[in-house]
């Protein structure tokens, strides 16, 4: 029990430290401004379309899909920028040892940092909750769908940030960490396209299930559903990334 308490305490300390570090570094503001500009662009564009009755045959239903859908894709450029120096710095300096009296375990460092960067991104997402208010003000959108759309987006952000953390643990070069993060994210977007080229049910099923569109767009964003398999996808991917990051950090330790 005390062990769990100690871990929680350590995580909290790392989270606080890293979280506040972000807000005094320019990168968070740059990424945040980019995020706000892009989502603002897509949102106001969608409002323009709603005003005109939409492009489609039966009109356009007001929803956040037209904003969150492109932003889910663009996240792969924004998230790695936040995470690219997260662990490589740590490897270089080992600062946490100084912060805490008790020795820190590798997984605590990784998870703490991940939670911090996820927290930072959550702030960005929270600001855009202004947009659904516009929808409610001028129309009657599907509230459940907005909720699941945002919830899923938040989970996807956590996942892609975890992958970024892993990328940053693998290499101490920030640019390479950025590219790795982006590459994995891109794979997660395009896997089902690869799957549709393969004439084998098993492989194409696996590739489809690896695709984020399957678990986010087709389920949470467009249908207002939260299903166990979607949660398992995000949690599973995050867990794998964080575990591998921990192992990598660990390996560097005893190799050194």
């Amino acid at each position: 029990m005390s062990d769990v308490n100690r871990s929680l305490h350590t995580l909290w300390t790392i989270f606080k430290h890293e979280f506040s570090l972000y807000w005094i570094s320019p990168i968070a503001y740059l990424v945040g401004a980019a995020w706000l500009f892009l989502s603002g662009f897509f949102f106001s564009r969608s409002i323009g379309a709603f005003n005109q009755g939409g492009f489609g045959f039966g009109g356009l239903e007001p929803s956040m899909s037209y904003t969150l859908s492109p932003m889910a894709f663009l996240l792969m450029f924004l998230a790695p920028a936040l995470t690219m120096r997260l662990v490589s710095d740590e490897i270089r300096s080992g600062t946490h040892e100084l912060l805490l009296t008790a020795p820190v375990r590798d997984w605590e460092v990784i998870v703490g940092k991940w939670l911090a960067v996820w927290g930072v991104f959550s702030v960005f997402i929270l600001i855009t909750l202004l947009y659904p208010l516009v929808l409610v003000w001028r129309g009657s959108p599907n509230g459940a769908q907005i909720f699941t759309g945002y919830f899923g987006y938040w989970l996807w952000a956590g996942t892609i940030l975890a992958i970024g953390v892993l990328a940053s643990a693998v290499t101490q070069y920030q640019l390479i960490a950025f590219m790795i993060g982006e590459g994995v994210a891109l794979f997660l977007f395009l896997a089902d396209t690869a799957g549709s080229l393969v004439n084998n049910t098993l492989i194409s099923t696996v590739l489809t299930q690896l695709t984020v569109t399957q678990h986010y767009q087709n389920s949470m964003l467009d249908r207002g559903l939260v299903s166990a398999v979607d949660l398992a996808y995000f949690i599973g991917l995050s867990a794998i990334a964080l575990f591998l990051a921990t192992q990598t950090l660990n390996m560097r330790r005893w190799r050194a």
Partner: protein
Amino acid sequence: MIKDKDVRINRDLLRWILLGVGVVALLVALIAAIVIGVDPNKTVLYIALAVGALGIVGFVLIDPESISKALTGRTGQQATISLLMTIFTLTAIVVLFSLVYKLDQDGTISPWDVGKSGQYQLHQQTIDILNSLEEPVHITGFYSSGTSDDAELLLKQYRGNSNGKLTFDIVDPDKDPGEAARLGATRSGMLVFEQGDRTAQATFADESALTGALVKVVLGEPQKAYLLTGHGERSVDDFANQGFSQAQSQLDRANYSLEPLNLIESGSIPADAATVIIAGPTAQLSQPEIDALTAYLDGGGSVLVLSDPGAGGGSLGNGVLGAAYSSDGRLLATAGADGTAKIWDAQTGQERMSLRGHTSDVIDVAFSPNEQKLVTAGRDGTVRVWDLTNGQEITELQGQTGLVQRVEWSPDGSTIASAGQDQVVNVWDAETFEPMSYSPLTTASPLLAVAYSPDGSLIAAGGGRTQGAVDGSVYVWNVADGSEVANRTLHTNPVFAIAFTPDGSELKSAAIDGTLGTLDVATGDGNTETLYPDVGITGLGFLQDGTQVLALGDGSVHIRPAGSTSTTDDTVLTGHTDLIWKLVVRPGDEEFTTVSRDGDARVWNIADGDTRLRLQAHNTGDPLLTYLDTAWGIKVGDDLVVDQATAQLFDAVTPVIFTYSATSPITKPLNDAQERTFFILARSVQAQATPPDGITDTALMFTSSGAAGTSWAETTDPFGTNQVSFDEQDIPGPVSIAVSGENAATQGRVVVIGDADFASNQALQSTTYANGQLLINTLNWLTQNENGIDIPPADLGTATWDRPLSAAPMAILQIGATCLLPLIFLVIGAVVWFIRRRRR
């Protein structure tokens, strides 16, 4: 030494690759086993297992020494533990995910439907039905690639609750047209249920439709849908364009069988009826038949009414359409849209006799000069002669085809003449009832008027409107030999009435543009004067002194003194509220009778201009439509639907519908899939604003919306002569052409559609239009109570954009969202950065 190291490195690399490949292969095998099950036919599984085993064995065998070192040495132990942990954790996560995936695929874990739309969660009723399945059911969903997601989500739930009895697969009809043809799937989005050799269809993947089809296929025996007969309804034996043979074969696949039902003979609806269809009756149902339908509906039955415009109380009018006096003026006969001709005491207005036999509207009547016989002309294309001493039909005169507009008995009693849609005047010998040798007399257009000269030697007819062109001619022939006496074009618009002057020297013709033509019978000369250009002349009669009595399109009657040259001398009589179909002067010149589309026959006193009698002769209305109106709050319009917006697809009176109710289970699938349906000559069907207690009415389909005059229901002149155009009497679009009604207390259901042709062979042949789907959806909904299931359609609560932003707030929003917010963020960042810099 160097060489040895190289070999070692290569060997190291090799064994790690082997291990990697082995582990991946084992993972694949594991996932495969979970996802596709341990299936001995799947070679993939064996290959993967073999590769996995070889990889691991290879890893050990290549360098057994290092294995033992790894297990004993300190660094080696660390690495091994780390490696094993990694393998273990990754495997555990992948296996867990695969398990969750499998449970999801089986439908064991349902997704959490946050909006509670009910779209992806099954009702207990469906789960009970799935649990009680005894024989396996297979569902084949036909979807083009990438469109089956919604269907699969739901079908998984069905499979998961069926204890393995239900299976499904998704087939792309483009890739496997053979299977689509075998199961009769004509379009993407259709689902076919099979149990044994029975099939049922769902046209849409929502719970209501799927469970409905499931019950149908499990029930086994096809359900009986009775098709009413005896009133000119469409028939399943009719393979022509207007027939319903195609409907039968389509419904057969959906597990319905169409059976004919003669309600007069059976007296009540058979107990095994799943529903009753009344498809385009051209004559009215009798009250006992309505009573039988009422009893059936009150017992929870269901009825589908397909009502064509102009049938029963429609088109030519609500009520009375024609009239004639006997030559002694004692009797008055009227012709009615209720399919009867009636004989009245002309003095008292008492009904003497009602003659029934026509299968549709009776349009005109004429007495024989001795008052013993009556001839009637009908919309059913027949001319019939009746014995007035006993009220029996004597014969049906042969030769006439198509709607008969006018019939006359010659003043000398020797011949009978009729004219109508078939563009000819038929003349019969009134003794033998055989056509005269020269008959028929042909003209260039459908005819609206025919008249004998006072001495019976001449016969005249006036031309109407043929498709596109107008024939404003007046024709005169010799009755004796059929030779043409005159043929002169006096009008540029259809001639609605003609009459000889009492002395027989002139023929007057009245046209609907308000012109009155005069033809000198002896010389063949003619002239035309324009009298009432705004309203048109629809009826024409003479008193013996030459006074003209003119009925006008606005329902007024003008009495013109003989020799008058302007309209200022007219005596104007008003009373009717709609145009007058026919005007007849009572012998004796004291009275005349008018029949109007307002439903009244009025007897007028010429001396004081008052209405002496008002006979609402045939104005009971169609009993079926009256019943639908009073008991169900469904109003079937006496009109014709015109849609200019979709006119380019067929024509303006063949509206193409793409606006549907998004809530009704009948039309929701059509709405969601943006399907189109088309209707050939349709009438409006509207739900009353306040339906009777306990009734829920839903308007199902609408014509195009848009500017006034884009679509409307033409009430002023559905089949007549005026140019069709939108005016204020018409019902403005979008016009509802179908309504469903449900009685909460009795569970009775009706659907009324303002057209029978939409389900005819002609319409169902089209694969572009979803008319067949509409028919099946309608029957599925109607019979749902019969099957004991009532699953509400999923309600997604359509999101709407009610108050669009105007330019100014839109600009503020654009600037705020794309510039202001990011800028604020950047400024804060800059300030923070600056402060930190200064502190350092």
